């Protein structure tokens, strides 16, 4: 691309060359400055800080600090919640999208579900936690109805909204819709001819899904999994409003660290943040690579 435009600019280069090139680049300067000041530099500062002593020298001690049991535990819970909600979000979102696009349900349901998914995937954070507390908390609607109508005491069964299971249940509320939004175009990309060809060769419905549809959808599937993982991993507000700070997931630890230096070592904060970037970065890299592969089939 760059070569092409340069070759294109050559004919009138003798006349305008001294002025033209810098002026063209001037056009993206405001954006570049903004991105540098408020996105790239702050992030780089954190990444570099993870490898620096308070005096500015190079060190790996901060990263070694991540091995403290409290921090390892937090990373472990965060990874578990993210993997769990990403996997369940993918599977459930896929089943719902398949049911509505391929399952012979009225066409109106499809639009309703997509619109609702757009809303629900953005309805994260504090209000989402409140909605679940009002539904499954100790005095929540479902808890009360189960008790009054069926005599089931939800909290006597060991269920607790402020727990790993509870957090998973809440996160799914924005994970499933995101999966639906991403996988529906991929499902639409499955060509009718493939199904017809499979059927005329004697394949059953299950065989068609297992041997044709799923292999085609697989990259979108894995890619979305990676995106959902990153999505859950970086979420703070929902967990914060749901559990206060009683559930030690990584973002909450980092939040407490920024607020009041609870770990007594500011540079450990850099290391935790660096760990978060590495994990979400890997997840998104996987997503980008797999998405490019998935798009081959959608043309």
């Amino acid at each position, binding site marked *: 691309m760059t070569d092409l435009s340069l070759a294109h600019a050559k004919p009138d280069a003798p006349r305008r060359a001294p002025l033209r090139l810098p002026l063209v680049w001037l056009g993206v300067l405001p954006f570049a400055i903004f991105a540098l000041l408020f*996105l790239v530099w702050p992030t780089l500062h954190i990444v570099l800080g993870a490898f620096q002593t308070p005096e500015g020298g190079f060190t790996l001690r901060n990263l070694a600090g991540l091995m403290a049991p409290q921090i390892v535990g937090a990373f472990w819970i965060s990874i578990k919640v993210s993997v769990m909600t990403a996997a369940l979000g993918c599977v459930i979102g896929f089943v719902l999208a398949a049911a509505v696009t391929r399952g012979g349900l009225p066409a109106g349901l499809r639009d309703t579900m997509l619109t609702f998914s757009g809303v629900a995937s953005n309805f994260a954070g504090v209000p989402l936690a409140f909605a679940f507390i009002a539904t499954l908390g100790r005095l929540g609607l479902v808890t009360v109805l189960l008790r009054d109508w069926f005599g089931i005491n939800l909290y006597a069964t060991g269920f607790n909204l402020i727990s790993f299971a509870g957090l998973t249940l809440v996160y799914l509320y924005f994970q499933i819709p995101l999966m639906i939004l991403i996988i529906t175009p991929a499902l639409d990309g499955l060509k009718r001819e493939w199904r017809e060809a499979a059927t005329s060769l004697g394949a059953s419905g299950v065989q068609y899904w297992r041997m044709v549809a799923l292999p085609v959808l697989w990259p979108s599937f894995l890619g979305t999994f990676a995106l959902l993982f990153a999505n859950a991993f970086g979420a703070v507000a929902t967990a914060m409003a749901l559990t206060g700070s009683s559930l030690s997931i990584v973002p909450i630890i980092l939040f407490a660290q920024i607020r009041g230096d609870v770990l007594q070592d500011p540079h450990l904060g850099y290391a935790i943040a660096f760990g978060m*970037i590495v994990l979400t970065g890997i997840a998104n890299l996987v997503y980008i690579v797999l998405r490019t592969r998935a798009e081959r089939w959608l043309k």
Partner: protein
Amino acid sequence: MIRSSRLWSWIAFALGAAYFLLPLAGMFEFSLRARRGEYSFQAYQNVLGDPQFLATFGYSVLMAGFTIVLGVLIVAPTAFWVRLKLPGLRPVIEFVTLLPLVIPPIVIVFGYIRLYNTSSWLPMTGSALGTDILLMCGYATLSLPYMYRAVDTGLRTIDIRTLTEAAQSLGAGWITILGRLILPNVFVAVMSGAFLTFAIVIGEYVFAALLNRPAFGPYMVWMGSNKAYEPAALAVIAFSITWACMALIQLATRFQKFTKASR
């Protein structure tokens, strides 16, 4: 075979609908329970009558407005310029605009606090105004992926090269071209980016909390730990706002289709 698969589809859909609608029902029902023994809108009255609510909500709406203006001012000229003059740079710009989805917001704001604190070269957190500007820039960063994609998609539908050349041959400068030609043409796309930004800014918690600004997100969390029924009312209000923003986006895109068809 077909009948049974349809049955399973209905079952899956019904279960999904139950999971997604029950919390909404729960939150609405809970918000009505403020008076013992009867349903009432007492919690809403309490919330709406709370000066803190009005102050924080107003602050967030104002911040959302400024963020949208800043976002449009940064994104629209860049997307236009890159499409017109520097197409080779597009993948780079696109990558940068996607970064806020990769880097967790809490890490970005951590960087702000370390870089722009009172003892740094640019002590933005030293004054309320400076922190507000920093917060606005942070919100604009968060909304960058959505804003850029919306505007870029809008630009794809119009022939900016021809339009620009036509305007230039009539003697228009760049400001005129951008303000009176390009922006009106991608107005609908800009609006859908703007509504999404609005929804993001109104509910945002981490940036505002860590920068210590009195926004709606921290207020909601404070309510959550201090009151019983008011948080549910706040959740209903926040959900309505999200819903309204998405509805306006849908409306905007439909309007765009309509104007395109009639051309």
